[in-house]
Protein backbone atom coordinates (compact mmCIF):
# COMPACT_ATOMS: atom_id res chain seq x y z
CA UNK A 1 0.00 0.00 0.00
CA UNK A 2 1.35 3.38 -1.05
CA UNK A 3 -0.08 6.62 0.25
CA UNK A 4 -0.13 9.76 -1.87
CA UNK A 5 -1.12 13.10 -0.43
CA UNK A 6 -3.49 15.31 -2.41
CA UNK A 7 -0.95 18.16 -2.25
CA UNK A 8 1.32 16.10 -4.50
CA UNK A 9 -1.56 15.52 -6.90
CA UNK A 10 -2.47 19.21 -7.06
CA UNK A 11 1.14 20.16 -7.86
CA UNK A 12 1.42 17.44 -10.48
CA UNK A 13 -1.78 18.35 -12.29
CA UNK A 14 -0.85 22.04 -12.25
CA UNK A 15 2.48 21.29 -13.92
CA UNK A 16 0.95 18.89 -16.46
CA UNK A 17 -1.64 21.47 -17.56
CA UNK A 18 1.13 23.98 -18.21
CA UNK A 19 3.56 21.54 -19.84
CA UNK A 20 0.94 20.10 -22.18
CA UNK A 21 0.05 23.60 -23.41
CA UNK A 22 3.61 24.98 -23.73
CA UNK A 23 5.62 22.10 -25.13
CA UNK A 24 5.02 20.22 -28.36
CA UNK A 25 5.83 16.53 -27.87
CA UNK A 26 8.85 15.16 -29.78
CA UNK A 27 6.85 12.58 -31.76
CA UNK A 28 4.73 15.40 -33.20
CA UNK A 29 7.67 17.71 -33.94
CA UNK A 30 9.44 14.85 -35.75
CA UNK A 31 6.32 14.09 -37.74
CA UNK A 32 5.92 17.76 -38.78
CA UNK A 33 9.58 17.76 -39.93
CA UNK A 34 8.89 14.61 -41.92
CA UNK A 35 5.76 16.23 -43.34
CA UNK A 36 7.90 19.07 -44.72
CA UNK A 37 9.61 16.53 -46.97
CA UNK A 38 6.35 14.92 -48.07
CA UNK A 39 4.37 18.10 -48.67
CA UNK A 40 4.20 19.27 -52.29
CA UNK A 41 2.22 22.49 -51.78
CA UNK A 42 4.33 25.61 -51.18
CA UNK A 43 1.64 27.08 -48.94
CA UNK A 44 1.42 23.73 -47.13
CA UNK A 45 5.17 23.77 -46.51
CA UNK A 46 4.95 27.35 -45.25
CA UNK A 47 2.22 26.32 -42.80
CA UNK A 48 4.26 23.36 -41.48
CA UNK A 49 7.31 25.61 -41.05
CA UNK A 50 5.22 28.15 -39.17
CA UNK A 51 3.78 25.46 -36.89
CA UNK A 52 7.33 24.32 -36.04
CA UNK A 53 8.38 27.94 -35.47
CA UNK A 54 5.29 28.45 -33.31
CA UNK A 55 6.25 25.46 -31.15
CA UNK A 56 9.76 26.85 -30.73
CA UNK A 57 8.43 30.29 -29.73
CA UNK A 58 5.97 28.78 -27.25
CA UNK A 59 8.75 26.70 -25.69
CA UNK A 60 11.27 29.52 -25.40
CA UNK A 61 8.79 32.17 -24.25
CA UNK A 62 6.87 29.81 -21.95
CA UNK A 63 3.51 30.53 -23.47
CA UNK A 64 0.67 28.42 -24.80
CA UNK A 65 1.17 27.08 -28.33
CA UNK A 66 -2.49 27.79 -29.03
CA UNK A 67 -4.91 30.24 -27.42
CA UNK A 68 -7.50 27.46 -27.11
CA UNK A 69 -5.87 25.84 -24.14
CA UNK A 70 -8.77 23.47 -24.04
CA UNK A 71 -11.04 21.78 -21.59
CA UNK A 72 -8.77 19.74 -19.34
CA UNK A 73 -9.32 16.04 -19.97
CA UNK A 74 -7.59 14.04 -17.25
CA UNK A 75 -6.96 10.31 -17.35
CA UNK A 76 -6.15 8.77 -13.99
CA UNK A 77 -4.85 5.21 -13.85
CA UNK A 78 -4.89 4.47 -10.15
CA UNK A 79 -3.22 1.38 -8.73
CA UNK A 80 -5.53 -0.62 -6.47
CA UNK A 81 -2.82 -0.52 -3.79
CA UNK A 82 -2.76 3.28 -3.67
CA UNK A 83 -4.39 5.25 -0.90
CA UNK A 84 -5.07 8.95 -1.31
CA UNK A 85 -4.70 11.03 1.84
CA UNK A 86 -5.48 14.62 2.78
CA UNK A 87 -8.72 15.07 0.86
CA UNK A 88 -10.73 14.24 -2.22
CA UNK A 89 -8.88 13.03 -5.34
CA UNK A 90 -11.38 14.73 -7.66
CA UNK A 91 -11.13 18.02 -5.77
CA UNK A 92 -7.34 17.80 -5.94
CA UNK A 93 -7.36 17.31 -9.70
CA UNK A 94 -9.68 20.28 -10.17
CA UNK A 95 -7.53 22.41 -7.87
CA UNK A 96 -4.51 21.46 -10.00
CA UNK A 97 -6.36 22.52 -13.14
CA UNK A 98 -7.42 25.79 -11.48
CA UNK A 99 -3.82 26.61 -10.51
CA UNK A 100 -2.34 25.45 -13.81
CA UNK A 101 -4.63 27.62 -15.89
CA UNK A 102 -4.18 30.62 -13.58
CA UNK A 103 -0.44 30.41 -13.02
CA UNK A 104 0.34 29.34 -16.58
CA UNK A 105 -1.57 32.27 -18.14
CA UNK A 106 -3.80 29.80 -19.97
CA UNK A 107 -7.22 30.73 -21.30
CA UNK A 108 -10.28 29.82 -19.25
CA UNK A 109 -12.65 28.27 -21.75
CA UNK A 110 -15.21 26.42 -19.67
CA UNK A 111 -18.82 27.56 -19.23
CA UNK A 112 -20.83 26.32 -16.27
CA UNK A 113 -24.04 25.60 -18.14
CA UNK A 114 -24.07 24.65 -21.83
CA UNK A 115 -27.24 26.72 -22.36
CA UNK A 116 -26.63 29.81 -20.21
CA UNK A 117 -22.93 29.79 -21.10
CA UNK A 118 -21.47 31.72 -18.17
CA UNK A 119 -17.71 31.13 -17.82
CA UNK A 120 -16.63 29.34 -14.63
CA UNK A 121 -13.57 31.61 -14.59
CA UNK A 122 -11.01 28.97 -13.69
CA UNK A 123 -11.33 26.35 -16.44
CA UNK A 124 -12.83 23.81 -14.04
CA UNK A 125 -14.34 21.32 -13.86
CA UNK A 126 -12.00 18.95 -15.67
CA UNK A 127 -13.38 15.92 -17.48
CA UNK A 128 -11.84 13.08 -15.46
CA UNK A 129 -11.65 9.43 -16.48
CA UNK A 130 -10.70 7.08 -13.66
CA UNK A 131 -9.34 3.65 -14.34
CA UNK A 132 -8.40 1.22 -11.59
CA UNK A 133 -5.33 -0.86 -12.41
CA UNK A 134 -3.05 -3.29 -10.58
CA UNK A 135 -0.09 -2.09 -8.54
CA UNK A 136 0.75 0.86 -6.33
CA UNK A 137 1.38 3.70 -8.71
CA UNK A 138 -0.79 6.57 -9.88
CA UNK A 139 -0.51 7.71 -13.48
CA UNK A 140 -2.02 11.06 -14.41
CA UNK A 141 -2.31 12.24 -18.02
CA UNK A 142 -3.59 15.71 -18.81
CA UNK A 143 -4.83 16.16 -22.38
CA UNK A 144 -6.16 19.72 -22.88
CA UNK A 145 -8.73 19.42 -25.69
CA UNK A 146 -9.43 22.34 -27.97
CA UNK A 147 -12.87 22.54 -29.47
CA UNK A 148 -11.92 23.44 -33.03
CA UNK A 149 -11.08 19.78 -33.39
CA UNK A 150 -13.47 18.40 -30.78
CA UNK A 151 -16.44 19.91 -32.65
CA UNK A 152 -15.50 17.99 -35.79
CA UNK A 153 -15.49 14.62 -34.02
CA UNK A 154 -18.29 12.12 -34.58
CA UNK A 155 -19.76 8.84 -33.41
CA UNK A 156 -21.90 6.40 -35.31
CA UNK A 157 -23.58 3.15 -34.36
CA UNK A 158 -22.87 1.11 -37.51
CA UNK A 159 -24.58 -2.16 -38.31
CA UNK A 160 -22.46 -5.31 -38.09
CA UNK A 161 -23.14 -5.81 -41.81
CA UNK A 162 -21.39 -2.47 -42.52
CA UNK A 163 -18.16 -4.26 -41.60
CA UNK A 164 -14.65 -2.94 -42.01
CA UNK A 165 -15.56 -1.02 -45.17
CA UNK A 166 -18.27 0.84 -43.28
CA UNK A 167 -15.76 1.71 -40.56
CA UNK A 168 -13.23 3.05 -43.06
CA UNK A 169 -15.85 5.08 -44.89
CA UNK A 170 -17.12 6.67 -41.67
CA UNK A 171 -13.61 7.62 -40.50
CA UNK A 172 -12.60 9.12 -43.85
CA UNK A 173 -15.93 10.87 -44.29
CA UNK A 174 -15.58 12.48 -40.84
CA UNK A 175 -12.13 13.85 -41.70
CA UNK A 176 -13.33 15.00 -45.13
CA UNK A 177 -16.27 16.90 -43.65
CA UNK A 178 -14.02 18.43 -40.97
CA UNK A 179 -11.90 19.96 -43.75
CA UNK A 180 -9.90 22.96 -42.52
CA UNK A 181 -11.78 23.39 -39.22
CA UNK A 182 -9.80 21.12 -36.83
CA UNK A 183 -6.43 22.74 -37.65
CA UNK A 184 -4.85 20.12 -39.91
CA UNK A 185 -2.56 18.28 -40.11
CA UNK A 186 -4.68 16.37 -37.62
CA UNK A 187 -4.19 13.33 -35.46
CA UNK A 188 -7.16 10.98 -35.67
CA UNK A 189 -8.22 8.80 -32.75
CA UNK A 190 -10.60 5.98 -33.61
CA UNK A 191 -12.47 3.76 -31.17
CA UNK A 192 -14.20 0.67 -32.51
CA UNK A 193 -16.47 -1.55 -30.41
CA UNK A 194 -17.77 -1.60 -26.86
CA UNK A 195 -20.88 0.51 -26.26
CA UNK A 196 -21.56 4.09 -27.33
CA UNK A 197 -19.56 5.71 -24.53
CA UNK A 198 -16.86 3.05 -24.62
CA UNK A 199 -16.16 3.74 -28.30
CA UNK A 200 -15.87 7.48 -27.57
CA UNK A 201 -13.49 6.82 -24.69
CA UNK A 202 -11.37 4.45 -26.80
CA UNK A 203 -11.08 7.16 -29.45
CA UNK A 204 -10.05 9.75 -26.88
CA UNK A 205 -7.51 7.40 -25.30
CA UNK A 206 -6.13 6.52 -28.74
CA UNK A 207 -5.00 10.15 -28.97
CA UNK A 208 -2.68 9.62 -25.99
CA UNK A 209 -0.60 7.04 -27.81
CA UNK A 210 2.61 8.50 -29.34
CA UNK A 211 2.02 8.85 -33.07
CA UNK A 212 5.19 6.97 -33.99
CA UNK A 213 3.91 3.80 -32.32
CA UNK A 214 1.44 1.63 -34.24
CA UNK A 215 -1.08 -0.69 -32.59
CA UNK A 216 0.56 -3.95 -31.50
CA UNK A 217 -2.20 -5.95 -33.20
CA UNK A 218 -1.09 -6.36 -36.81
CA UNK A 219 -4.56 -6.14 -38.35
CA UNK A 220 -5.27 -2.89 -36.47
CA UNK A 221 -1.82 -1.58 -37.44
CA UNK A 222 -2.67 -2.26 -41.09
CA UNK A 223 -5.98 -0.47 -40.68
CA UNK A 224 -4.20 2.55 -39.16
CA UNK A 225 -1.77 2.71 -42.07
CA UNK A 226 -4.48 2.29 -44.69
CA UNK A 227 -6.65 5.00 -43.12
CA UNK A 228 -3.71 7.42 -42.95
CA UNK A 229 -2.88 6.83 -46.59
CA UNK A 230 -6.47 7.38 -47.67
CA UNK A 231 -6.90 10.52 -45.52
CA UNK A 232 -3.75 11.98 -47.04
CA UNK A 233 -5.30 11.57 -50.48
CA UNK A 234 -8.16 13.91 -49.54
CA UNK A 235 -6.09 16.96 -50.50
CA UNK A 236 -7.08 19.02 -47.45
CA UNK A 237 -3.47 19.69 -46.47
CA UNK A 238 -1.88 21.87 -43.76
CA UNK A 239 -4.38 24.49 -42.48
CA UNK A 240 -6.82 23.09 -45.05
CA UNK A 241 -5.24 25.19 -47.81
CA UNK A 242 -4.57 22.19 -50.02
CA UNK A 243 -1.76 19.66 -49.81
CA UNK A 244 -0.61 16.13 -49.10
CA UNK A 245 -0.23 16.25 -45.32
CA UNK A 246 -3.77 16.21 -43.94
CA UNK A 247 -3.14 13.84 -41.02
CA UNK A 248 0.03 12.97 -39.14
CA UNK A 249 -1.34 9.69 -37.79
CA UNK A 250 -4.40 7.56 -37.21
CA UNK A 251 -4.46 5.72 -33.89
CA UNK A 252 -7.09 2.98 -33.61
CA UNK A 253 -8.19 1.11 -30.50
CA UNK A 254 -10.69 -1.76 -30.45
CA UNK A 255 -12.79 -3.47 -27.78
CA UNK A 256 -15.24 -6.40 -27.84
CA UNK A 257 -18.80 -5.40 -28.61
CA UNK A 258 -22.37 -6.76 -28.68
CA UNK A 259 -23.61 -9.24 -31.32
CA UNK A 260 -25.96 -6.56 -32.66
CA UNK A 261 -23.60 -3.59 -32.83
CA UNK A 262 -20.58 -1.91 -34.37
CA UNK A 263 -20.00 1.43 -32.61
CA UNK A 264 -17.33 3.66 -34.15
CA UNK A 265 -16.09 6.93 -32.68
CA UNK A 266 -13.74 9.36 -34.41
CA UNK A 267 -12.05 11.90 -32.16
CA UNK A 268 -10.08 14.43 -34.16
CA UNK A 269 -7.17 16.28 -32.61
CA UNK A 270 -5.30 19.30 -33.95
CA UNK A 271 -1.67 18.98 -35.03
CA UNK A 272 -0.37 19.56 -31.51
CA UNK A 273 -2.19 16.54 -30.00
CA UNK A 274 -1.40 17.94 -26.57
CA UNK A 275 -0.91 15.63 -23.63
CA UNK A 276 1.52 15.30 -20.73
CA UNK A 277 1.75 12.55 -18.13
CA UNK A 278 3.35 11.80 -14.80
CA UNK A 279 3.59 8.68 -12.65
CA UNK A 280 3.47 9.05 -8.86
Amino acid at each position, binding site marked *: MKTIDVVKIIETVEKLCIDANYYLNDDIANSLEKGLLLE*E*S*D*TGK*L*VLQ*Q*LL*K*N*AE*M*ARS*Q*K*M*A*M*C*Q*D*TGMAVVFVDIGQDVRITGGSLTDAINEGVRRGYQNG*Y*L*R*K*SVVKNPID*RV*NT*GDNTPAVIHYNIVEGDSLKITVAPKG*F*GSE*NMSALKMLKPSDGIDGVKEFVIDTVRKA*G*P*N*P*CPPVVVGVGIGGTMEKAALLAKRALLRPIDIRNSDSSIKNLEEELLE*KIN*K*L*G*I*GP*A*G*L*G*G*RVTALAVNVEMFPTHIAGLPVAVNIN*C*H*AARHAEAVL
Partner: protein
Amino acid sequence: MQNIIKIQTPLTKEKVKQLKAGDNVSISGTIYTARDAAHKRMISLIEEGKSLPFDVKDQIIYYVGPCPARPGQVIGSAGPTTSGRMDAYAPTLISMGLTGMIGKGLRSKEVIDSMIKYGAVYFGAIGGAGALIASTIESEEVIAFPDLGTEAIRKLVVRDFPATVVIDCYGNNLYEIGRKRYMVAE
Protein backbone atom coordinates in the same frame (compact mmCIF):
# COMPACT_ATOMS: atom_id res chain seq x y z
CA MET B 1 7.31 30.70 -53.42
CA GLN B 2 5.00 33.58 -54.29
CA ASN B 3 5.43 37.09 -52.95
CA ILE B 4 3.76 38.15 -49.76
CA ILE B 5 1.37 41.06 -50.27
CA LYS B 6 1.49 43.78 -47.64
CA ILE B 7 -1.85 45.12 -46.46
CA GLN B 8 -2.26 48.28 -44.41
CA THR B 9 -5.58 48.84 -42.63
CA PRO B 10 -8.16 50.29 -43.08
CA LEU B 11 -9.06 47.72 -45.73
CA THR B 12 -10.87 49.75 -48.38
CA LYS B 13 -13.06 48.13 -51.04
CA GLU B 14 -10.40 49.07 -53.62
CA LYS B 15 -7.83 47.01 -51.70
CA VAL B 16 -10.31 44.13 -51.31
CA LYS B 17 -10.83 43.95 -55.08
CA GLN B 18 -7.12 43.37 -55.67
CA LEU B 19 -6.91 40.33 -53.41
CA LYS B 20 -7.27 36.83 -54.83
CA ALA B 21 -7.82 33.48 -53.13
CA GLY B 22 -4.39 31.94 -52.52
CA ASP B 23 -2.55 35.23 -51.96
CA ASN B 24 -0.27 35.14 -48.94
CA VAL B 25 -0.51 38.45 -47.13
CA SER B 26 0.92 40.28 -44.14
CA ILE B 27 -1.43 42.68 -42.42
CA SER B 28 -0.39 45.81 -40.53
CA GLY B 29 -2.43 48.41 -38.71
CA THR B 30 -5.51 48.34 -36.49
CA ILE B 31 -7.81 45.32 -36.43
CA TYR B 32 -10.59 44.34 -34.01
CA THR B 33 -11.26 41.06 -32.21
CA ALA B 34 -14.66 39.47 -31.72
CA ARG B 35 -15.91 35.92 -31.40
CA ASP B 36 -19.15 34.19 -30.44
CA ALA B 37 -20.44 36.20 -27.49
CA ALA B 38 -19.28 39.59 -28.82
CA HIS B 39 -20.96 38.95 -32.16
CA LYS B 40 -24.19 38.03 -30.44
CA ARG B 41 -24.11 41.30 -28.50
CA MET B 42 -23.22 43.40 -31.54
CA ILE B 43 -26.16 41.99 -33.47
CA SER B 44 -28.45 42.73 -30.49
CA LEU B 45 -27.21 46.34 -30.49
CA ILE B 46 -27.97 46.64 -34.20
CA GLU B 47 -31.46 45.19 -33.69
CA GLU B 48 -32.06 47.72 -30.93
CA GLY B 49 -30.94 50.52 -33.25
CA LYS B 50 -27.90 51.33 -31.09
CA SER B 51 -24.40 52.07 -32.33
CA LEU B 52 -21.64 49.45 -32.33
CA PRO B 53 -18.52 49.72 -30.12
CA PHE B 54 -16.56 50.54 -33.30
CA ASP B 55 -17.48 51.51 -36.84
CA VAL B 56 -17.07 48.35 -38.91
CA LYS B 57 -16.72 50.24 -42.21
CA ASP B 58 -13.49 49.23 -43.99
CA GLN B 59 -12.36 47.29 -40.92
CA ILE B 60 -11.11 43.76 -40.27
CA ILE B 61 -12.50 41.56 -37.51
CA TYR B 62 -10.21 38.84 -36.19
CA TYR B 63 -12.01 35.83 -34.70
CA VAL B 64 -9.89 35.18 -31.61
CA GLY B 65 -10.12 34.71 -27.88
CA PRO B 66 -6.56 35.25 -26.65
CA CYS B 67 -4.82 33.80 -23.61
CA PRO B 68 -4.07 36.20 -20.74
CA ALA B 69 -0.79 38.10 -21.06
CA ARG B 70 2.09 37.40 -18.73
CA PRO B 71 3.37 40.56 -17.00
CA GLY B 72 5.43 42.41 -19.60
CA GLN B 73 3.75 40.68 -22.53
CA VAL B 74 1.37 42.51 -24.91
CA ILE B 75 -0.97 39.54 -25.23
CA GLY B 76 -0.98 35.79 -24.68
CA SER B 77 -1.27 33.17 -27.38
CA ALA B 78 -3.69 34.53 -30.02
CA GLY B 79 -4.44 32.25 -32.97
CA PRO B 80 -7.69 32.11 -34.94
CA THR B 81 -10.84 30.33 -33.83
CA THR B 82 -13.27 28.46 -36.11
CA SER B 83 -15.09 31.08 -38.20
CA GLY B 84 -18.20 29.06 -38.98
CA ARG B 85 -19.69 29.90 -35.59
CA MET B 86 -19.84 33.55 -36.64
CA ASP B 87 -21.65 32.77 -39.92
CA ALA B 88 -25.04 33.67 -38.49
CA TYR B 89 -23.81 37.18 -37.67
CA ALA B 90 -21.26 38.01 -40.38
CA PRO B 91 -23.61 38.96 -43.26
CA THR B 92 -25.15 41.78 -41.19
CA LEU B 93 -21.73 43.25 -40.41
CA ILE B 94 -20.59 42.86 -44.03
CA SER B 95 -23.71 44.74 -45.18
CA MET B 96 -22.65 47.56 -42.83
CA GLY B 97 -19.26 47.88 -44.49
CA LEU B 98 -17.03 45.29 -42.81
CA THR B 99 -14.43 44.37 -45.44
CA GLY B 100 -12.27 41.73 -43.80
CA MET B 101 -12.51 38.73 -41.51
CA ILE B 102 -9.63 36.65 -40.18
CA GLY B 103 -10.26 33.16 -38.85
CA LYS B 104 -9.95 29.55 -39.84
CA GLY B 105 -12.30 27.03 -41.36
CA LEU B 106 -15.31 26.86 -43.64
CA ARG B 107 -17.84 29.66 -44.25
CA SER B 108 -21.51 29.35 -45.17
CA LYS B 109 -23.00 30.20 -48.55
CA GLU B 110 -24.80 33.17 -46.97
CA VAL B 111 -21.50 34.66 -45.81
CA ILE B 112 -19.83 34.14 -49.19
CA ASP B 113 -22.83 35.64 -51.00
CA SER B 114 -22.61 38.74 -48.78
CA MET B 115 -18.88 39.00 -49.42
CA ILE B 116 -19.50 39.01 -53.17
CA LYS B 117 -22.43 41.43 -52.90
CA TYR B 118 -20.76 44.02 -50.69
CA GLY B 119 -17.06 43.39 -51.36
CA ALA B 120 -15.30 41.64 -48.47
CA VAL B 121 -12.49 39.16 -48.06
CA TYR B 122 -11.94 36.20 -45.74
CA PHE B 123 -8.39 35.62 -44.55
CA GLY B 124 -7.22 32.33 -43.04
CA ALA B 125 -4.67 32.51 -40.25
CA ILE B 126 -2.89 29.34 -39.20
CA GLY B 127 -4.91 27.50 -36.60
CA GLY B 128 -2.65 26.51 -33.74
CA ALA B 129 0.01 29.15 -34.40
CA GLY B 130 -1.06 31.27 -31.44
CA ALA B 131 2.40 32.10 -30.12
CA LEU B 132 3.72 33.06 -33.55
CA ILE B 133 0.74 35.31 -34.26
CA ALA B 134 0.96 36.92 -30.80
CA SER B 135 4.46 38.10 -31.70
CA THR B 136 2.96 40.26 -34.49
CA ILE B 137 0.60 42.07 -32.10
CA GLU B 138 2.08 45.37 -30.92
CA SER B 139 -0.72 46.64 -28.72
CA GLU B 140 -3.99 45.45 -27.26
CA GLU B 141 -6.87 47.38 -25.71
CA VAL B 142 -10.28 46.11 -24.59
CA ILE B 143 -12.82 48.53 -26.07
CA ALA B 144 -16.12 46.80 -25.27
CA PHE B 145 -17.78 44.06 -23.21
CA PRO B 146 -14.94 43.60 -20.67
CA ASP B 147 -17.20 41.24 -18.72
CA LEU B 148 -16.76 38.74 -21.53
CA GLY B 149 -13.10 38.22 -20.59
CA THR B 150 -11.30 36.54 -23.46
CA GLU B 151 -14.37 37.16 -25.64
CA ALA B 152 -14.32 40.96 -25.13
CA ILE B 153 -13.85 43.22 -28.16
CA ARG B 154 -10.22 44.27 -28.45
CA LYS B 155 -8.52 46.82 -30.62
CA LEU B 156 -5.22 45.38 -31.78
CA VAL B 157 -2.37 47.05 -33.61
CA VAL B 158 -0.56 44.41 -35.62
CA ARG B 159 2.58 44.43 -37.73
CA ASP B 160 3.08 41.83 -40.45
CA PHE B 161 0.33 39.55 -39.22
CA PRO B 162 0.63 36.46 -41.49
CA ALA B 163 -2.49 35.23 -43.31
CA THR B 164 -3.71 33.79 -46.58
CA VAL B 165 -6.66 34.96 -48.68
CA VAL B 166 -9.00 31.98 -48.47
CA ILE B 167 -12.15 33.46 -50.01
CA ASP B 168 -11.95 36.59 -52.17
CA CYS B 169 -14.69 39.06 -53.07
CA TYR B 170 -15.35 37.15 -56.28
CA GLY B 171 -16.26 33.97 -54.44
CA ASN B 172 -13.07 32.04 -55.22
CA ASN B 173 -12.40 29.66 -52.35
CA LEU B 174 -8.91 28.32 -51.63
CA TYR B 175 -10.30 25.56 -49.41
CA GLU B 176 -12.02 24.14 -52.49
CA ILE B 177 -9.34 25.02 -55.04
CA GLY B 178 -6.49 23.71 -52.88
CA ARG B 179 -8.28 20.50 -52.00
CA LYS B 180 -9.08 19.75 -55.64
CA ARG B 181 -5.50 20.41 -56.67
CA TYR B 182 -4.08 17.84 -54.26
CA MET B 183 -6.89 15.31 -54.06
CA VAL B 184 -5.98 11.84 -55.31
CA ALA B 185 -8.93 9.97 -56.75
CA GLU B 186 -9.42 6.46 -55.41
